[in-house]
């Protein structure tokens, strides 16, 4: 079987700047020497949870783990229970951290202080079939489902996306993003894009709109911003003065055309959207101001099976049905028509209501409970109806925080005597709203 060896990074030479950390420039030579020294010091294990918040240290950890043939696990959130479940299943599992984290149930391995600078080692390269990372989604029955990405899948997807995003004019670009790198989008469009295109990646993630533009203003051109519709909307605040950019990449939820237009005008750069999911990886792109149709990446095939649309192909991490309603159009293009009923997407974090309900009902003292999505306000949020005579809202929130991502915590909890279940045990939405 053809199993090519693919390099960890594709920067021009050892002096190329690969990261910028609070203004400090980090060369490829320093990055590689830190990778080698960390790889030598990592505990004996087959898997590692990489919790590093700094993108430079996260990347050092990712490549060092690959050199040791350790698979990097990226849980969907910092909630304690899913991580403890992983640790229970693998006694050698440990977490690589670069700042204090409140986690018990897993050994922590703090990122060691910078080692002595040795001569730059060769750029490591890995077989395409080597297991690189495992991302997690929430299954409908309450357990976290693992999704493996091989090194070849990560690199292939990055190359296929770059071809469609027209990055050829952006050689040596600097890059920053507002999304976490432990999720699919950030891993692909910040870490992998940067490593595989010789870019300079900002090590810190800016938070407020004023932080984002302040960081962008200090970056050399050409510069790219990787972001979400929520952050783009906050950047359109008239009081925020933004420097010109050269490319914007947006994902997590479809962007409205008028917001895309406003962003292109204010930031003076083309804006591309990426459509993808944790199960498959990157699937399609569109230049939102030109078309509402998505164009599949080379190496991705979409086909209708029964009443679902499946994504598969040479760059797909795994063939999978998609959680959105999709209308296939001509020439490898499609339209997004919304989410399937059970799926929710809060700020790019997808889950199913069935999963969240199972987590709610697993809390001792909760006799019955259900989440309802409320679309009022700028971001959709959840509300919970709960039958739990012995518990209060603070207790339920604390228990949920151990189990699910903070984005899915209910905005409010209504305590009721019973849920209006019908004869089939189902909960009609109208009956819930009447509570």
């Amino acid at each position, binding site marked *: 079987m053809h199993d090519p060896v693919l390099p960890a990074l594709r920067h021009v030479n050892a002096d190329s700047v690969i990261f910028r950390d609070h203004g400090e420039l980090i060369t490829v030579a320093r990055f590689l020497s830190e990778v080698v020294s960390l790889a030598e010091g990592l505990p004996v294990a087959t898997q590692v949870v990489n919790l590093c918040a700094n993108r430079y240290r996260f990347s050092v950890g990712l490549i060092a783990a690959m050199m040791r043939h350790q698979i990097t696990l990226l849980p969907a959130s910092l909630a304690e229970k899913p991580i403890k479940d992983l640790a229970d299943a693998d006694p050698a599992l440990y977490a690589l951290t670069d700042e204090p984290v409140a986690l018990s149930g897993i050994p922590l391995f703090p990122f060691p202080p910078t080692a002595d600078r040795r001569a730059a080692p060769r750029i490591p390269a890995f077989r395409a079939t080597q297991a690189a990372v495992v991302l997690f989604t929430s299954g409908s029955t309450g357990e976290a489902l693992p999704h493996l990405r091989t090194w070849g899948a990560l690199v292939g997807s990055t190359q296929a996306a770059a071809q469609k995003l027209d990055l050829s004019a952006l050689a040596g670009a600097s890059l920053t993003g507002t999304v976490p790198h432990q999720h699919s989008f950030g891993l692909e469009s910040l870490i992998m894009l940067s490593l595989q295109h010789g870019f300079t990646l900002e090590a810190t993630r800016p938070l407020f709109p004023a*932080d984002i533009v302040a960081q962008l203003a200090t970056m050399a051109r050409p510069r790219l911003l990787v972001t979400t519709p929520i952050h783009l*909307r906050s950047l359109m605040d008239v009081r925020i003065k933004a420097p010109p950019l050269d490319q914007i990449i947006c994902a997590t939820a479809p962007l409205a055309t008028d917001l895309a237009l406003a962003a292109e005008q204010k930031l003076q750069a083309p804006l591309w959207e990426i459509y993808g999911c944790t199960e498959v990886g990157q699937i399609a792109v569109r230049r939102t101001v030109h078309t509402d149709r998505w164009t599949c990446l080379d190496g991705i095939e979409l086909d209708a099976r029964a009443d679902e649309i499946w994504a598969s192909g040479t760059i797909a991490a795994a063939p999978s049905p998609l959680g959105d309603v999709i209308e296939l159009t001509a020439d490898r293009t499609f339209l997004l028509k919304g989410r399937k009923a059970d799926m929710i997407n809060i700020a790019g974090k997808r889950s199913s209501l069935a999963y969240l309900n199972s987590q709610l009902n697993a809390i001792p003292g909760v006799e019955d409970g259900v989440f309802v999505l409320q679309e*009022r306000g700028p*971001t959709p*949020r959840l509300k919970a109806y709960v039958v739990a005579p012995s518990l209060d809202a603070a207790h339920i929130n604390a228990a949920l925080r151990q189990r699910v991502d903070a984005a899915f915590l209910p905005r409010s909890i209504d305590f009721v005597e019973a849920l209006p279940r019908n004869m089939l045990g189902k909960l009609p939405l109208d009956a819930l709203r009447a509570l």
Partner: protein
Amino acid sequence: MSPAENDLARLIIETLNLDFDIALATGDTPLYKEGFGLDSIDILEVALAISQHHGVKLRSDDENNVVIFSSLRALASYIEEKRPR
């Protein structure tokens, strides 16, 4: 709670459609994660509302440094300090 803290609590509750009883809030009530229970998406909305109402742009060195959201009082005094006069 000072009048400024009370106004700020009201602004946050209205901006985010929070189901939070303002009578339970004090100057010490945390905003981020605990107390008001805001997350990183919420504080973008709050930053926008504060920019519009007070002309103040919120800043933080990075996402792990959200000291100004440690309490209602901390955010109110940040706004008072940075408010254009």
